[in-house]
């Protein structure tokens, strides 16, 4: 692993991420006087001589709070760190947090409130595709700016959104290539929850397995969201004896799936399993003993060894307690405020129209996941990593791909 900022390991880990960005961006912190408000804000956003207001819009209540809490924490941490460094264009960031309450129309309403009443310069938020799809028309109509953290199914690109997680092909293709080679896998069993993300992902996975890997899909199964009984499905898998189970089960079902899989005798000693829906956050609920030896394909694992990440993990734990864990999406959410800062500073303006065109091409070298680059299609170039779960809930890195270009509308996979 060749990280260009190795020299920074001499610094205190907590400061590494912050200092790194400062070094990369500017010689010293910007002062507000250099950027008069009238010049940096021509579109009536909530920007004063001292402050700039942004929004955070996630579910702090309801079913999705399980997943979205980590994103809220990461975004607040990044904003606090940016403020410590002097803010953006010399202005402190102030946050208005709204609760989407796991309800998609609420996301649209709150987006409208943040954009039209509060005039926020950017929003960090949404988690499920459903909430993003609900909020998207509002962002496009009011010309807002959204940083969306979750890995998702792709098939979307908007002027008003930057996607800091992976789109489906980035997460799926390299992972399948790896396991096909590593386990000499010929037969695959696909299983996911029954909604758009797993279904789109499995469609891509099936095409890739059949057309590029010469493998065979021996079963494809979708579980109703919230279903907790897997007895029959597991028996079907046992009958088919696939070389690899490829899983994208989410939520409470995910916990039940792994607990029952293990209890049915299908553990890593007997069965290879690659999942795209388990991060460190999910492991808390599933229990490390039920995952031990299975693989996850993600762009980030908490256990990544590089100076950026060590600084990030230390800062996160300092802010949220020693037991806090960081999953893939949490890290992607952490990138949002940093990317927005970069966009504004490159544009020398808070105006959405200017910031949006300034960001593509930007290279963020201080990301905990390592180097990322913003593509003109508003997604990030990133690496895919395969982690093998340990009993203690952390993953050992077993594979790392080269940088993968984002391709939200993959030809031949739709």
């Amino acid at each position, binding site marked *: 692993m060749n990280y260009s900022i190795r020299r920074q390991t001499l610094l205190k880990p907590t400061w590494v991420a912050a200092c790194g960005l400062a070094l990369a961006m500017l010689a010293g912190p910007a002062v507000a006087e250099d950027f008069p408000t009238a010049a940096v804000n021509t579109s009536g956003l909530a920007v004063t001589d001292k402050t700039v207001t942004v929004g955070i819009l996630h579910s*702090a*209540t*309801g*079913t999705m*709070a*399980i997943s*979205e*809490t*980590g994103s809220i924490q990461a975004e607040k941490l990044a904003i606090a760190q940016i403020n410590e460094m002097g803010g953006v264009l010399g202005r402190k960031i102030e946050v208005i947090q709204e609760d989407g309450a796991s309800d998609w129309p609420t996301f649209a309403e709150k987006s409208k409130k943040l954009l039209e009443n509060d005039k926020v310069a950017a929003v960090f938020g949404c988690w499920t595709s459903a909430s993003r799809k609900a909020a998207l028309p509002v962002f496009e109509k009011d010309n807002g700016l959204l940083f969306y953290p979750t890995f998702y199914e792709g098939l979307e690109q908007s002027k008003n959104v930057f996607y800091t997680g992976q789109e489906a092909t980035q997460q799926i293709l390299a992972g399948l290539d790896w396991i096909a080679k590593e386990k000499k896998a010929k037969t695959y069993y696909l299983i996911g929850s*029954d909604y758009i993300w797993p279904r789109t992902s499995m469609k891509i996975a099936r095409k890739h397995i059949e057309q590029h890997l010469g493998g065979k899909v021996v079963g494809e*199964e*979708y*579980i*109703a969201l*919230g*279903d*907790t*009984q897997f*007895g*029959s*499905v*597991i*028996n*079907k898998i*046992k*009958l088919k004896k696939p070389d690899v189970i490829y899983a994208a089960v989410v939520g*409470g079902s*995910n*916990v*039940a799936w792994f*607990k*029952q899989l*293990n*209890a*049915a*005798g*299908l*553990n890593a000693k007997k069965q290879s399993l690659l999942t795209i829906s388990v991060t460190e*956050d*999910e492991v*808390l*609920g*599933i*229990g490390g*003993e039920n995952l031990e030896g299975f693989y996850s394909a993600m762009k980030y694992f908490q256990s990544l060894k590089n100076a950026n990440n060590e600084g990030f993990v230390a800062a996160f734990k300092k802010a949220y307690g020693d037991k806090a864990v960081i999953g893939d999406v949490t890290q992607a959410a952490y990138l949002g405020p940093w990317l927005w800062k970069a966009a504004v500073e490159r544009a020398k303006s808070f105006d959405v129209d200017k910031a949006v065109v300034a960001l593509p091409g930007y290279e963020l070298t201080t990301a905990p996941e390592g180097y990322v680059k913003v593509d003109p299609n508003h997604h990030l170039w990133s690496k895919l990593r395969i982690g093998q779960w340990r009993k203690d809930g952390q993953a050992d890195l077993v594979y790392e791909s080269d940088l993968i270009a984002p391709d939200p509308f993959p030809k031949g996979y739709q």
Partner: protein
Amino acid sequence: MFEYTMEEVGNIVVMQGFSGLSLFSVLLLMALGLAIIFGQMGVINMAHGEFMAVGAYTTVMMSKLAVAYDIVNSYFVFAIIAAFILAFWIGYGVEFLLIRHLYKRPLDTLLATWGLSLVMQQIFRSAFGAKEVSAELPEWLLGSFQPTEGIDIPINGVFVMALALVVTVGVYLYMFRSRAGLRVRATVQNRVMAGAVGINTKQVDRLTFALGCGIAGVAGAAFTTIASTGPTTGSLYIVDSFMVVVFGGAASLMGTIASAFGIAQAQSILQFFMTSSMGKVATLMTIVVILMLKPEGLFASKVRK
């Protein structure tokens, strides 16, 4: 199925039979508490799932203690007892503060208990965090039991089955073989008359409600072995619980058992031969059709109206 050997097919039949029975005991355990409350008192307890979550969180907390004192292998039984006691007393309090004021307005109990379920979810979230947690389980509850090569019987399934049996027999003995149960049945059949012969029907209601909640707590504790524990865990169970109770016929213990068995077998078999979601759809359709033909459920009770 000619691509498989006879032995493979045999193994699958055994394991599939077991998973049907296992689903049966899960559904039964889920529904028993609700059946007692709904069947005996006519109260629609929408917070049933949250009482299960109380049991689950109790188990998680106990497991933390167990890890600290290094008694992971034996704590689970105590966790179940603690889950029962805690859920029982919370149920007792809820009846006193909320439910007893609404007996004459049965539809309002639905709204009130639904509100209660939201309140409880938020309490879990504030107290234990929004993320899911898991209990440290004893070694003997993990993994599978292999009678022969090729057959795996999940141990947690056997455990849930045994517990469902114990609870069902317990409820039966309480309801049909004890003085307290006699008072409950008398109150259900004719509340005014029961009061006239000196039964404290208010006390009976309170105990019945608390008992139903306590059993929900036991179910929640047991389900930590097979599913998740989080603030909204309860909502995963509430629909299935109601389905079992309504399909069985509201006021009948036998009906609940028969209904849990029927639904479990149908679902388990259909999900094996169809896709999982289609299996569920087919099961629900069957239930709807049967309920249209027999609106009172499988076992209609003879209650004086």
